[in-house]
């Protein structure tokens, strides 16, 4: 867990306070100018699209540094990619693309296994499928949207994750947000990790079930919440809960932490509650043969009721899946709106996942899959330990390819991002609303596609920029103090 240094917390709060004050001041003058012009942007008689402070953050904070986000690229998101250069004529309010690109080291894409770029095994098969099936079926799965590729993928995914059956969707976000309401409704309870992804939050909200949150990755607190909830039952009526689903993620994308799965599963089994594991970032990326956190942490997939994952990250495609018992999948195929109303997954994307899984499993007749898995583990652990040695505050666990570097101060967000880009290293910086306001960070995603030289070059730049920006919060010298503080963080 992050423990924010006292002085940093103060300076960060001060920075945000200053930004807020200046934003308010500018808003004030803007209102005066608007009043003189007396031509409001919004039509008369209509309430404005954003009321009051709803878009204050966007206008006064985000726009000033928006060049650090949504940078367009002009190539596949491989180990190195071409970032399109942009310029602004109005203080960053609007950005314009240029024809110029610069080749940068990609430390931002979720290309864990390196399937994003053309692959000798996958790409020819994808193109073949494209020619055979076209890019789309223009139909829903239950009408004319099921091709033999879709059936093959569902069988393969079920086999890969170790569950009896699976159902796939064309988008990972929709998988979460449309499945949860089918499984649970009014009278049910969802217990969600405090740092779960927005799609889970949205799905839980859409279900009409009650939602309680337990402290991030804390099995003891989960047990406490469960005991209290089972004993108390539903609020006001005190009827027992119809069912309880505990939702956790395999790797938390903003923290880089692995789920404490064995402990959490033990608690869930003890209290007879269902478990829902979102492996968006972990499937394919961790585990000896890429089968995700269950394999890595030694949990039997049979103990997890619902295993969800996406094809966007490790498999370099799009879409998501739910693997579960045969009966649950049958029920989902009958009832889930995303299965009944959404266009089925694009056939070439289906083929990409099939081919990628085959490579991972070694069914393509080569050992490339195993090599990729070894490579990503080695790359991740090398990069993480080097960053820690340099004195950065790095979150997350070993083996996780996601490693956030804490920045804290708002001014350090654009500084770090722009300086890295200037040295041809593309990093992702994350700020509010994706993280708590005070805990802004840069996030590194390691890929198996990167070579040792790439990583060394990346580390050099990050170290140099880290010195410049002043984010080495735990410098190696003096060692005593550094070690102590470091222990606290972990």
């Amino acid at each position: 867990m992050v423990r924010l240094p006292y002085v940093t917390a103060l300076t960060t709060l001060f920075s945000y306070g200053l930004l807020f004050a200046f934003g308010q001041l500018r808003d004030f003058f803007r209102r005066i100018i608007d009043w003189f012009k007396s031509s409001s942007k919004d039509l008369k008689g209509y309430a404005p699209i954003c009321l009051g402070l709803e878009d204050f953050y966007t206008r006064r904070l985000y726009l000033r540094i928006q060049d650090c986000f949504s940078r367009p690229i002009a190539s596949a998101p491989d180990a190195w990619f071409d970032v399109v250069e942009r310029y602004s004529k109005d203080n960053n309010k609007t950005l314009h693309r240029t024809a110029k690109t610069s080749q940068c080291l990609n430390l931002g894409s979720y290309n864990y296994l390196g399937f994003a770029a053309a692959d000798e095994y996958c790409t020819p098969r994808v193109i073949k499928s494209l020619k055979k099936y076209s890019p789309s079926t223009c139909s829903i799965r239950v009408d004319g949207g099921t091709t033999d590729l879709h059936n093959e993928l569902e069988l393969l995914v079920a086999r890969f994750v170790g569950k009896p059956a699976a159902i796939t969707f064309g988008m990972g976000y929709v998988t979460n947000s449309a499945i949860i309401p089918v499984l649970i409704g009014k009278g049910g309870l969802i217990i969600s990790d405090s740092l779960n992804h927005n799609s889970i939050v949205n799905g839980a909200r859409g279900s009409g079930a009650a939602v309680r949150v337990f402290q991030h990755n804390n099995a003891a607190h989960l047990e406490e919440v469960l005991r209290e909830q089972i004993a108390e039952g539903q609020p006001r009526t005190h009827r027992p809960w119809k069912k309880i689903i505990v939702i956790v993620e395999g790797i938390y994308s903003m923290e880089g932490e692995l789920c404490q799965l064995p402990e959490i599963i033990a608690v869930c089994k003890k209290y007879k509650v269902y478990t829902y594991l979102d492996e968006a970032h972990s499937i394919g990326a961790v585990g000896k043969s890429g089968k995700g956190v269950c394999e890595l942490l030694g949990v039997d997939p049979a103990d997890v009721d619902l295993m969800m994952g996406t094809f966007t990250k490790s498999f370099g495609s799009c879409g998501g899946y739910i693997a579960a018992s045969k009966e649950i999948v049958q029920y989902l195929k009958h009832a889930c709106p995303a299965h009944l109303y959404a266009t089925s997954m694009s056939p070439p994307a289906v083929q990409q996942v099939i081919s990628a899984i085959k490579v991972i499993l070694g069914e393509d007749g080569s050992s490339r899959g195993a090599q990729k898995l070894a490579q990503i583990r080695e790359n991740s652990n090398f990069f993480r330990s080097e960053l820690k040695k340099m004195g950065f505050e790095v979150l997350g666990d070993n083996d996780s390819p996601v490693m956030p570097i804490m920045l804290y101060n708002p001014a350090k967000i654009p500084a770090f991002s722009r300086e890295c880009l200037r040295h041809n290293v593309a990093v992702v910086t994350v700020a509010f609303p994706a993280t708590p306001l005070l805990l802004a960070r840069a996030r590194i995603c390691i890929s198996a596609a990167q070579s040792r030289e790439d990583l060394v070059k990346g580390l050099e730049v990050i170290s140099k920029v880290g010195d410049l920006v002043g984010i080495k919060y735990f410098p190696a010298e003096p060692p005593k103090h550094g070690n102590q503080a470091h222990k606290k963080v972990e």
Partner: protein
Amino acid sequence: MLSAAQDLVYGLLPTEEAEDLGLGSLRRHHHLGFLISDDEKSSYNYLKPGIGDLSSDVDLSAFGLGLEHRRYLLAFFSVFGVSIYFGFFCNTLPSFNFKAEVMATAVMNMTTAALDWVSIAFDAPLARAVVFGVHIDGHLVVEVLLIAVILFQLTRKSYKPPKKPLTEKEIDDLCEEWIPEPLHPPITEEMKLEPPTLESAAGPHTVIDGKEVVNFASANYLGLIGDDKIIDSCVASLEKYGVGSCGPRGFYGTIDVHLDCETRIAKFMGTPDSILYSYGISTIFSVIPAFCKKGDIIVADEGVHWGVQNGLYLSRSTVVYFKHNDMTSLESTLEKLTRGNKQAEKIRRYIVVEALYQNSGQITPLNEIVRLKEKYRFRVILEESHSFGVLGNTGRGLAEHYGVPIEKIDIITASMGNALATDGGFCTGTARVVDHQRLSSSGYVFSASLPPYLASAAIAAVDHLEDDPSLLTTLRSNISLLREGLSDLPGLTIASHPLSPIVFLKLKNPTGSFKNDLELLNKITERALKEDSVFIVSTKRSVLDKCRLPVGIRVFVSAGHTASDIKKVSDSLQRVAALVLAEHI
């Protein structure tokens, strides 16, 4: 209450003074509202409030009370007054009125005797007591006591039973006893049904179970599935960018083709800007909550599909439904919501409609919607998934069809999985509308972006449509040809709009049960596929879907169908419907 206050004042008069001054002194207090006569007899009836609705005077002589007992009476009244006074403040007697007072008087008199004794008992030892110049006597003691009791009672907390938290043992037992419901309801035969599997592209002709069938189940309206130009652009894109984008738009998931595609769609639609979503159905249910928040008003058609329903639910706004495609119902709803409601001007108001309802094949009368929207000042969110690329002379959608300027529609969303034969969705409107979504729309911000080859396909499809609008003429003639062929089906009737590429057939005589209707329709589609190699489909309804419109058979017409395909489906439907619906005609 007035007399109660007077009582109080009288009660607080130093009684010695009152005694010494006798009646004369009381007369000085006429201004207090009491009528006190010189006559001794009538002086007994001195409680006569100035307000004349008190029906009976109180005859004190009946209780054997003489003038000398007056001060005790005063004492009692003062106590009574104090109680009422406090009662008034404590709101325990909010509706105290004179009638109640009259009734209370009888009770008062009853207690007076008792009080007499108390007062005398207190009076005797305190007859000469003077504290700080105030003569202490019985009634003062009683009053003080009463006030003390009242204050004491007021300051006490209300009674609460002591809390006994559950012991660990009890919680253990409760956890042990708790039996959760299973994750899924019992599996029925119906749930085990598998949809047909396609063994080739879902074009106008496809292969199911090794047999070539005519496909009327895909919303491939322009017949772009299998189009060479589109496939070539996809191949080029796949080779350059790979399949997935491996990131959300904010974090290096923005690929130049996404931006090109957004510009292309905006240019085609004639809007300032547009924004791409990575999945058709997520477009609308992300857009609605991005604009509508708690406290806002949304007026929506009751026939909207699940994606819209989900968006409405997630927005937490106040949602009011109007009758399916009924403009008088919409107008009266708008009127009701805005009439005399000054607050309505300050909150955001939206009308949400589908251009072409996938649940019924009806088309929204946009000219009427725009008139009402301007009259009542609502913004319009228009879902164009099935009308984009279909309606209008050049396929620009419903606005073109009705000749409504595109600026009048505030927000347009559409899925690209239908006419454009690719995947994903877009939303288009002013720069303000689009930019707002780039940080506030959860399906955009928190999801990986559209695979770049699908964006290339969309660009190629829009180009194709613009280059060759004759596709639309073919589509329209196919639709009218099919409608002609299906015009007098046994037991089925066409419920869709004449221009709708979804020809919606519903039962002439519904069985009254949604499930039975669907069973009948499924029988027709199954037999058509098995016996005539014609692939048509019935409505599907999720348990979460709140739409209550009748179910039906949906025949998706494409510009790629030939006249003989259309004849085949009409003939098959004629034959199978006559067989299956023999008893339902």
